[in-house]
């Protein structure tokens, strides 16, 4: 898989572009992104915030990541490999879903509601944590989901379906969101 990272060298944070490219390639293979897809990871090292997005165009993918998404929350400006893997796993599972014809056709990331983002993230991270055998941040994600879907038993049941789900479609995610 062809993965490029921008910028090729970091000056404001202690990140390594080569390491990020290696991680992105490993995670992409793990989550099932097709091998012929080109991935560009564009890291905004100027920002300590953690906004991310993924845009698919033909067989190319551009991941836009604010530096805070890869940063160790305990060490200012230092890279967190576990955190980066989790962020990449979430983003690349979405990409893999978009390349899967059976998944359906979700709108672009920019057109998703915050409730849809929370739901799809839960589905992606639940799968990633099982696939990679890591802590995917169940509690954190459930709290984020509750903020968008309510602090109710019904919302928790919906979250559990997403977190534990596999082979869901975009229509399934939307249906679960309406539970």
């Amino acid at each position: 898989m062809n993965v490029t990272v921008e910028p090729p060298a970091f000056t404001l944070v202690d990140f390594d572009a080569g390491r990020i490219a290696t991680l992105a390639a490993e995670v992409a293979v793990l989550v099932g992104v097709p091998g012929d897809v080109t991935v560009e990871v564009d890291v905004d090292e100027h920002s300590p915030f953690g906004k991310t997005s993924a845009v698919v165009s033909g067989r190319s993918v551009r991941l836009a990541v604010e530096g805070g998404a890869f940063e160790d929350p305990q060490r200012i400006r230092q890279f967190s490999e576990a955190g980066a893997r989790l962020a990449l796993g979430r983003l690349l599972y979405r990409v893999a879903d978009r390349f899967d014809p059976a998944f359906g056709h979700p709108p672009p990331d920019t057109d998703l509601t915050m409730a849809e983002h929370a739901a799809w993230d839960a589905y992606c991270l639940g799968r990633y944590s099982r696939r990679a055998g890591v802590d995917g941040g169940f509690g954190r994600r459930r709290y984020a989901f509750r903020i968008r879907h309510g602090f109710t038993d019904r919302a928790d049941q919906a979250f559990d379906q997403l977190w534990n789900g596999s082979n869901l479609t975009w229509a399934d995610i939307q249906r679960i969101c309406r539970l």
Partner: protein
Amino acid sequence: MRKGFPAEDLARDSRFRRARTEDRITDPRNQYLSQQGRRAGRLTPERPDAAHAARQMMHGIFVGEIQALEGAGRTVWDFDDEEAPFALKLDMARQCWDEARHTEISVKLGEWMGTEVGEFAETTFLYEASCNPDPVLRLTGVNRALEGLAIDVFNTMREFGQACGDPVLEFCEDWMLADEVTHVKMGSDWLRRLTESDPERRERALEFQRVVDKLFSFRGFRGEGDDSPIQLARTFRRMAGFADGEIDTIAADSAADSQQEGWKAPV
């Protein structure tokens, strides 16, 4: 047991990671945030990163409670009965009990929100504000500036819990907020009593409080602007004994400071 305890020697277990305030202030990314006019903004559910920001703030509250406990505890020990009346130290001991309870509540709230102890780095500037060798100045630093900030933070979190329908967060913050109002009230009362016949000392104490309050406003981090993550809680501050003029000063200092270039807290 020694008197006057340095922040770097505060006891923490291996889960905690200390960050230096200087490193945050000198973070080279600050200049870019300033240039872009980028701020985190008010803590509301409408923020896309609301859950993360709330969890980070909750962790800040947790370590702040530990440091408030340490600060009030030092006041009980560091001064003899000549420097600080026994009744004042009794109030500080009572406050320690409150802070210990708040620490436990904050740990549980963190768990409720999916946060682990030590997930975020801890800075000790809250404790550092409670190390003044003059008991009156320390009292204003802890019980009026630090606990005043706690009123603003708890009210912000209480409103956040209310807005996103989190009944646990709203309830717990409301109860802790009530304690903080009492702590500030104690500080206001003791400041008045201890400086009754020494207006110059009272003036020095209030000036020290203003300096600490400016630090706590973090270039607009706490204020009345729409982009301030922590909102100044005027009503609760009045209940705690702050005069309107004092609250106006904090708001004005924060507004002026927010125009300065430099560190903008990312919460």
